[in-house]
């Protein structure tokens, strides 16, 4: 196992920066997601206007992987449509499961592509996918 492929500069920066970690004023959707076995616990907040995610943020606690993954996802989905966001979730989960390996297809995941190596660390996969599953729950309703 190579820690360098997991704890990358980008993950550290997202974990530490906290620029997406704040409550929103009057969010349209609030969705909580947690991993009961390890205690990662995040709450996504979304502002949606005419099917477009205008703003997004999160609050909560968790490990560096879960926090960075959440922050990267939020950067990615802002000003995207619900359908686009759902498609990104599918692509991300596909990448983690190693079902999607085509570089061009993965490009749209931007920063979060660095989390692809997490599949080599089975104990931490659930940390990486928590935010994405939570988003899917929130917007498929």
């Amino acid at each position, binding site marked *: 196992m190579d820690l360098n492929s997991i704890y990358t*500069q980008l993950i550290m920066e997202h974990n*530490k920066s906290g620029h997406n970690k704040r409550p929103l004023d009057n969010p349209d959707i609030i969705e909580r997601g947690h991993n009961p*076995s*390890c*205690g990662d*616990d995040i709450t996504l907040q979304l502002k949606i206007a005419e099917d477009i995610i205008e703003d997004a943020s999160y609050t909560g606690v968790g*490990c*560096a*992987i879960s*926090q960075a993954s959440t922050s990267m996802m939020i950067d990615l989905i802002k000003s995207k449509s619900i359908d686009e966001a759902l498609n990104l979730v599918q692509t991300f989960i596909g990448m983690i499961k190693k079902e999607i390996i085509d570089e061009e297809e993965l490009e749209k995941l931007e920063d979060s592509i660095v989390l692809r190596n997490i599949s080599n660390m089975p104990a931490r996969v659930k940390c990486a996918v928590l935010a994405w599953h939570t988003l899917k729950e929130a917007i498929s309703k």
Partner: protein
Amino acid sequence: MNKLNVDEIKKDFPILDQRMNGHRLVYLDNGATTQKPIQVIEAIFYYNTRSHGNPHRGAHQLSIRATDEYDLAKERVRQFINAKSLEEIIFTRNTTESINLIASAYGREFVKENDEIVLAISEHHSNILPWQRIVKEKKAILKYMYLNEDGRIDTEEIKEKITKKTKIVSIAHMSNVLGTIHPIEEVINYAHKMGAIVLVDGAQSTPHIKVDVQELDADFYVFSGHKMLAPMGIGVLYGKKEILESIPPFLMGGDMIEYVYEKEATFAPLPYKFEAGTQNVEGAVGLKAAIDYLENIGMDKIEEHERFLVEYALDKMLSIPYVNVQGPKDLNKRGGIISFTIDDVHPHDVSTILDSYGIAIRAGHHCAQPLMRYLKLPATSRVSFYLYNTKEDIDQFIEGLRNVRKWLGYGS
């Protein structure tokens, strides 16, 4: 007193002799489960290659041998915790099943509306959930004894929470999170004065300190084999004979009966009344071999060795400014478990990073969410020691600890 010869002991544990992620494996997750010496592995092997049959059921030689092995294992457990008679030793799958048995069978029979059941806030979920269920069913009341700043339950708290209304007190001998050794003698004495019975969860204590159920005067004492060198799937419920006799059976099925008619049945005497269905004989055989191994070394020496390890580790950990140790600092009040946090780093990241240095530790809420909430911690990292751990293991752990923050981009 002779010190433990840990180098010799380590040779008995083949699993420890391997490298993990390019480093010497350091196993510090003994609170979760322990490793098996070759003596335990071989005892199970010999049982399976010479004596396996269904005990108490056949007239053929293998069934008789299996019966002998099973009963011998039970007798070994009786001696180990100094129970009065074999009738007081019941084999279960694990501590969780033992607690469920008492909560369900004793609780359903004896707990009435408005009765109180008292736990410590530091209990493992397995010593909380079975009581929550019985309290709901019976409209009884669940109360908690809280810890003081040193992670201990003090006399005032015991006297405030345990009253004449208390029916059952259920408490761990040693906390699986903080390593605190609770004052269970005091709890038991006081509970008995108030007319309550006491269940002691010995999952973390039995493997590490000498337990004498008669001296403690515990009404029930429960523990698991796999935390004391034995296989998973074998656990023990000790109960005072007169109390066990007053409780109806828990599981119904084969081997726990006397006579069965179309519409009713009478039950086997203790301890078989509580052992329905085919039992885990090879687990019992493994547990006997584990007890032989531990007693051959001496529980007092194991305890002394672990105390040395805790003192050595605590001293080093407390000298690192960004490491925060939870639980009592007084060595006389704690066992071989240390929970800690590292500034700015989540326990799961600590665990993953240490794993890359070959060090196995536990991270999370340790199945003790009410305690974590009480301590206002989302999670902790935990190291837990056993007889095969060495000073070198702790040195490697401390070196790993010093590297953790760097991986997450902090200066030191």
